[in-house]
C-alpha cells in the first residue's frame, strides 16, 4: 500500500526525536504568548524553558476540557484573528461550545493528515468517496472532503439526506469508499437489506469507520455484509481532525502522526506516565498547530501504546483505542455526548436544575439515538397533556439541535427511576 508522505511518516527514531524536540520547544514558546497558557504555567511555577527534553514535558501542567469553555470563544487562539481563515464549533462538556480556529497553514496540515490516512486505506484518484456522517460531525465531514480531494478522489460531500436517498447515491454514483461511523454503517446495511439490494450491486470496496469504536464483531459483520474492507480512523472534537489516528494495512493499532502530535499515556488518577504498554488516558500536545495549540490536553480517551516496528514501514507509533473512557462522556454514532452538556441544556430549558434524569443510547431498526429520561416532579408536572407534550418536544428539539443527534425524551415518574 502506498505511503502519502514517506519522509515524514518513516523518519528513523533519532530524527523523529530531534524533530519532535524542535517542534515542541517552538510550540511551547508560541503557546506561551497566549495569556491563558502564560497564567496557567505561572500558576504551576513553570516556563517553556523547563522543557529540555521530551521527558521534561511532564513538568508542564495539563489542560482539561473545562478550559475550553472558560476561554470561550477566542481565548485559546495563539494568532490574531486576522490570521484565522476558518472557525469551527464543537460541543464541549460545559454550557459553552469549543471554538477552534485555523490558519491557512493549519488547514494544509489537516488536509495532509487526512490524505495520509486515506492513502493508508488504499484510497486513490480512481475512487469515488462519499461522506455520510451525522450533523454533529460536520467538521470532520469538511476535513474528509479536503483530504480526499488532495488524494484526487472524487468526493460526494456530507449531506443530510434520508437513508434511502443515501443508498440511491451510493449505488447510482458508484461510490467506492464510504466514510461513516460504525453505527451509520450498520444502519446502511439495515436499509440495504430492507430495499432488497444485493451488496454486489454496489461499487463499494472500502469502508472508513470513524467516531465510535466498533464492537468486537461489528467490523467483521460489516465487511461480510457489505463485501468491503473496513478501516478505522480516530479523531477528537477539540482538534477537529478526524484522523488523529489511522489504520494501515496491518490493522494492528492506529498510527498517530507524531510529526504533528506528541502523545503521552498517563494514569487518569495520578497524572503520572504509565509504564510501556500499559493502559491509560491519552494526553495530546499539538506540535505544529498555529492557531489553536493544545499543550498536554487530557483527552479522556483510554488507550494503550503498541510497541515494535510496524511492517508497513511507518515509524509513527501505534495506539490501541479502548472503548471505555476516563470522563463522563459517551459516543453515539460517532458523536460525543457529555453528561454535563445534557445537564446544562436541560437546566437552561427548564429554568431550573432537572430533579432526576438519565440518558442512554438506544438502537431501533439499526438506528442509534439518544434517549433522555426525565423524572417529573411538581415543578415539571402539568395536568394538561398538551403542555407536557410541548415540553417534551421542546427539550427534544433543543438537545437534538445542540448535540447533532436524534433525541427522544421520556417523561417518567420520579419513583420509576431505579
Amino acid at each position, binding site marked *: 500500500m502506498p505511503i502519502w508522505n514517506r519522509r515524514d511518516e518513516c523518519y528513523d527514531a533519532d530524527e523523529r526525536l530531534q524533530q519532535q524536540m524542535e517542534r515542541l*520547544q517552538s510550540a511551547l514558546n508560541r503557546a506561551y504568548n497566549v495569556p491563558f497558557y502564560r497564567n496557567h504555567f505561572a500558576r504551576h511555577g513553570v516556563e517553556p524553558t523547563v522543557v529540555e527534553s521530551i521527558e521534561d514535558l511532564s513538568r508542564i501542567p495539563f489542560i482539561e476540557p473545562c478550559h475550553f469553555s472558560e476561554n470561550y470563544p477566542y481565548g485559546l487562539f495563539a494568532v490574531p484573528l486576522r*490570521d484565522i481563515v476558518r472557525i469551527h464549533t464543537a460541543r464541549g462538556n460545559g454550557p459553552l461550545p469549543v471554538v477552534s480556529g485555523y490558519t491557512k497553514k493549519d488547514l494544509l496540515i489537516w488536509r495532509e493528515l487526512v490524505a495520509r490516512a486515506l492513502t493508508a486505506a488504499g484510497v486513490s484518484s480512481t475512487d469515488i468517496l462519499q461522506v455520510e456522517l451525522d450533523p454533529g460531525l460536520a467538521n470532520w465531514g469538511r476535513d474528509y472532503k479536503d483530504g480526499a480531494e488532495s488524494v484526487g478522489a472524487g468526493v460526494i460531500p456530507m449531506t443530510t439526506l434520508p437513508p434511502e436517498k443515501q443508498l440511491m447515491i451510493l449505488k447510482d454514483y458508484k461510490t467506492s469508499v464510504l466514510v461513516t461511523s460504525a453505527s451509520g454503517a450498520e444502519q446502511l446495511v439495515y436499509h440495504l437489506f430492507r430495499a432488497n439490494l444485493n451488496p454486489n450491486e454496489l461499487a463499494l470496496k472500502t469502508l472508513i469507520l470513524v467516531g465510535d469504536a466498533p464492537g468486537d464483531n461489528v467490523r467483521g459483520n460489516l465487511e461480510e455484509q457489505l463485501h468491503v474492507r473496513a478501516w478505522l480512523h480516530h479523531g477528537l472534537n477539540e482538534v477537529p481532525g478526524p484522523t488523529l489516528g489511522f489504520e494501515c494495512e496491518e490493522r494492528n493499532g492506529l498510527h498517530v502522526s507524531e510529526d504533528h502530535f506528541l502523545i503521552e499515556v498517563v494514569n487518569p488518577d495520578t497524572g503520572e506516565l504509565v509504564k510501556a504498554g500499559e493502559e491509560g488516558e491519552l494526553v495530546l500536545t499539538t506540535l505544529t498547530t498555529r492557531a489553536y495549540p493544545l499543550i498536554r490536553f487530557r483527552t479522556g480517551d483510554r488507550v494503550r501504546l503498541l510497541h515494535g516496528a510496524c511492517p508497513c514501514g511507518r515509524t509513527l507509533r501505534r495506539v490501541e483505542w479502548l472503548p471505555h473512557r476516563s470522563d463522563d462522556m459517551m459516543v453515539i454514532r460517532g458523536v460525543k455526548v457529555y453528561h454535563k452538556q445534557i445537564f446544562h441544556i436541560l437546566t437552561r430549558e427548564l429554568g431550573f436544575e432537572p430533579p432526576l434524569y438519565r440518558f442512554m443510547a438506544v438502537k431501533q431498526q439499526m438506528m442509534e439515538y439518544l434517549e433522555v429520561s426525565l423524572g417529573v416532579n411538581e415543578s415539571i408536572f402539568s395536568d394538561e397533556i398538551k403542555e407536557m407534550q410541548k415540553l417534551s418536544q421542546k427539550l427534544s428539539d433543543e438537545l437534538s439541535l445542540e448535540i447533532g443527534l436524534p433525541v427522544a425524551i421520556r417523561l417518567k415518574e420520579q419513583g420509576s427511576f431505579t
Partner: protein
Amino acid sequence: MEPGVFQEVRTMLRIRNLKCFYGRIRAVSGVSLSVRRGEIIALIGANGAGKSTLLNAICGLHPQWNGEILIEKQSLSGLKPPDIVKMGISLVPEGRMLFPPLSVIDNLKLGAYVRYRKKEHREIEGDLGTVLELFPVLKERMKQPAGMLSGGEQQMLAIGRALMARPRLLLLDEPSMGLAPFLVRLILDVLVQLKGQGMTVLLVEQNARAALQIADRGYVLENGKVILDGNASELLTDHDVKRAYLGKDYREFYEGRA
C-alpha cells in the same frame, strides 16, 4: 503535498536545547534545530534575537553555552575554534572581518591556514582557482589590498576565504548587511550555486525575505527562542515571520485582541 519520494535524512548539524550566556544574561534559551546535508537553512529574527550568538557558539567563538551541538554525531563541546574549523565548519562573520592591508590572495590563503599544516599545498592552489572562478571580480583584484575593495567585493572575499578551508558546513552571519540589492542577489546566487555542489549552509539574516527565497527551511528566533520553523516557502508568507522580523512584541497582538 504529493506523495513524496523517500530520501534518507542525513543530519549534518544537530543542536539540542542550546543555551548561551553573556555572564548572567541568557541570550539563547533552549534552542533545538537541525541542518541536513545539502540544505540551506535560514535563521531569521530581529536584532538581539540570538542569531549571531548561536552561530558563534557553533564556531567556538562563544564558549559560554550548554546543551548539545553535534556535527554528524560528533560533539563540539569544549572544542576551540581551530579544532572546529578542522572538523569542516567555516564562518563568514558579520562585518566580514578581513585583513584590510593584506592582498586578496593572501586573505584567501589565510582561509586555508589549517590545511597548510597538513601540507595540502597543491590542493590549496587548486581551490584558489575554484574560488576565483566563483568570484571572477576577485581575480581581477588579486593583488589589491582587501581594504580597497567595495562592500560587495569584500563579502565575496569573506565567503571565498571561508571556502578555502574546504568546509562541510558554511555558516554566514548577515552576508547581505550594507550591500545594495543587486549585490545581495549576487551573493545569494553564489550560495545557491554552492548548494548545487553539495555544500550545507546555515544562513543568519535579518533580510528575511532574501534569505527565505533561497533557503530550504527556516527557523524564526525571538528573544533567544525558536517560535516558528518550517519550509522556507511557507515562512515567506507568514504574518508571524513579519512580526518577528520587525521585532514587535507579540503580546500586544494577543492582549489587544479581545
